[in-house]
């Protein structure tokens, strides 16, 4: 036994033996090692591996169910102790809330308080959020983009162009959807809506177009280049515009912003909120559309 241990120690030190040898840890074997193991031994390793995998899968399920149950119970239990919904004296009904409601319209120039909050009071967060979308688009591109000559086109056997109901309805609806989307974007500071919702409507319109009329046609309307240019331009504009307002927002820089809130209620009011809404909307639209195209086609063009 003793010599056995020392022999193993020596082997372990040289990297030829691990405590898991012959068990489930085949993944840690080097490429050369795998060749040396003889075929019958390999079979035993595999069957052992299968058994271990089975056991660990069962363990995993049991543990995950227990953990999820505990977590849900804790969270549901906590809700009981939270302040009531829409009570008058909850901690969230404080000076910040009052300020947003009472001064929001005059300070930001936006009739829609939410737009004033996300694009003026807390514009830095929204800058981050639109970059979350950009990050997600680039990540999906990194994951899914095929080489152009690579994969064959996949046919899913569904051609909505042949469906008289879908085709006719889509033909009728798409222009309306797009117009509504643009309206929501431009009216974001005046009525409920804004960049995120308007962009989602626009993106939905383009996705419907691509689904019904085929991706080839959609690519002609919104090509890879257009999607890229629009997102790059919108994000750059967002960065520059917000840099300007962050820079001028601090007195020690000695520069004051020349952009005022304007006359609340007018279409051209709210300072940077309208252009920022447009920028956010374009980014959201491009992100949704690129997701659809990438998952469907594997590329944007």
């Amino acid at each position, binding site marked *: 036994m003793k010599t056995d241990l020392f022999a193993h120690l020596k082997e372990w030190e040289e990297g030829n033996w691990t405590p898991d040898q012959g068990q489930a840890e085949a993944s840690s074997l080097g490429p050369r090692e795998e060749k040396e193991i003889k075929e019958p031994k390999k079979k035993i390793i595999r069957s052992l591996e299968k058994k271990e995998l089975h056991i660990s899968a069962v363990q995993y399920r049991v543990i995950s169910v227990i953990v999820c149950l505990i977590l849900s119970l804790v969270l549901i239990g906590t809700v009981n102790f939270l302040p009531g919904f829409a009570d008058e004296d909850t901690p*969230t009904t404080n000076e910040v809330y009052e300020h947003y409601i009472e001064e929001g319209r005059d300070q930001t120039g936006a009739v829609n308080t939410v737009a004033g909050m996300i694009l003026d009071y807390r514009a830095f967060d929204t800058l981050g959020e639109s970059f979350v979308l950009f*990050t997600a688009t680039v990540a999906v591109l990194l994951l899914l983009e095929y080489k152009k000559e690579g994969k064959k086109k996949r046919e899913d056997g569904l051609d909505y162009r042949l469906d008289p109901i879908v085709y006719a309805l889509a033909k009728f609806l798409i222009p309306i959807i797009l117009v509504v989307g643009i309206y929501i974007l431009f009216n974001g500071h005046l009525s409920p809506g804004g960049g995120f919702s308007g962009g989602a409507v626009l993106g939905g319109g383009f996705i419907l177009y691509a689904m019904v009329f085929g991706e080839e046609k959609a690519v002609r309307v919104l090509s890879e280049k257009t999607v890229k240019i629009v997102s790059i331009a919108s994000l750059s504009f967002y960065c520059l515009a917000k840099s300007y307002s962050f820079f001028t927002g601090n007195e020690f820089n000695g520069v004051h912003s020349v952009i005022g809130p304007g006359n609340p209620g007018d279409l051209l009011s709210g300072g940077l909120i309208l252009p920022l809404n447009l920028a956010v909307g374009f980014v959201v639209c491009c992100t949704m559309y690129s997701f659809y195209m990438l998952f469907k086609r594997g590329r944007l063009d």
Partner: protein
Amino acid sequence: MDFMMNFPFITIVLSLFSSVIAYALKGKQARFVSYSLLGICSLLHLGVLFYNLTGDGYFVYRMGHYDAPIGNEISAGLLEPFFALLFSLVMLFSLLGGAKRIFSDLEEGKYKLFYVMVNLVHAALAALAYTNDIFTGYVFIEICTIASCALLMARSHGKSLVAATRYMIFSLMGSGLVLIGIILLYSITGHLLFPQMYESVQSLWTSGEYRIPLTVAIGLLVSGLAIKSGLFPFHFWMPDTYGTATPAASAILSGVVSKGYIFFLLKLVFRVIGFEVFVSSGIQSVLFALGILGMIFGSVSAIRTNNINFMIAFSSAAQIGYIYMGLGLGTKEAVISLLFQILAHALTKPMLFLAASKLSDTASGAQDFASLHSSAHDHLFAGLGYSVGALSMVGIPIFVGFVPKLFFAMAAFGHGLQTYCVLIALAISTILNVVYFLRTLINIYSPPTRKVTRRHFVFQTDRLFCVMMVLMLVVNVALGLCSQPVVNLFDAGFDLFLFVR
């Protein structure tokens, strides 16, 4: 001079902007953008640090036209610019050192996107360091999560996709818990900015109102960030993830991304929750126990594995354990040691990953120890880098890894039972560290015991890699030899962290 107060915001927005620019450019230009961004941002962080060292030491910068509870703001004391500087420098080191492998690992179309993601990770890390608003923190955690996942899966290789998926599941679970924690905390404090939140948390804790939601919120925030940074027992995503990605991505992830989350956690603990509340909520003891378990079990796993990258990854789990143990001890000395541990680990881990990748390159990419025999003779600088990194991780004096271990031991005294736990855990963990790092060192320098297929082409000398190894070595030894200025900086910075809001 006051212009320097703009620097933190410039670094964040510039990183975001340059990611858009890199997206519009071609591969090599995008790489150039990343290098220059990281270089410029390092200078800017240094500027902020210098400004705060010579001036008041702390400032708050308004992000927009509205003052604190109404608008967003960022703040910088001494620790924020220091760690932001560390993050950008280590990222630059890792990128330059792993540049060749990035080029050969990635498909042509993905090369540019990799650098876009690098810029986004940097933006997120800078924002996590400087933010004074919990929701801004969350937004940039999201960016960091997605971008680091993308860095991992950039190498389209079956295993790395599986590993990235696993990382994503863990990381999203962490983000989800953090988000729920933020929501709970907001609904009982009514604020999102750190100073206001701190005041309400203190008054809530003394009045005893909403005690249960507050405790749950703290628990969720801490566990979410602990999962994301890989605390035991949530470290199982580490080996696969770091073992299969391109070395620069592993270096960035283990070196700085996990530290970014930890730094944000420290901000939350000291600047939002308040240390007394944190201690009395009892979560501290859980962290202490998990930290110690992580120190030991991370090392045990590292001994069991036969793959050099897995071993380094498991050793990360052990090192993260040290950090949480320090947080669990909860004295000023312990926090200073944990800050130093962050610094030491961020400087050493990238070195190990980059060197290990070069070593395994000499053996046709095999990562098991038996194939790595004598690989250090084939690539001298990789061997040198690996040796220094290993010695530093073990905690040999003159290397930077020694300093935090010494400080942890010193900080542990006077805590009763905890003292023994820390000292014994430190001793066991150090011995285990020696066991597995020494074993690799012996392996890479000893002559081959059997015929190993070597790559038959001649190595192209990777000068950049060699220069980076030497630079990191110099920094490592320099900090290991004169740690006192940094410790003084941490000392002053931590006081600002605690008392100036």
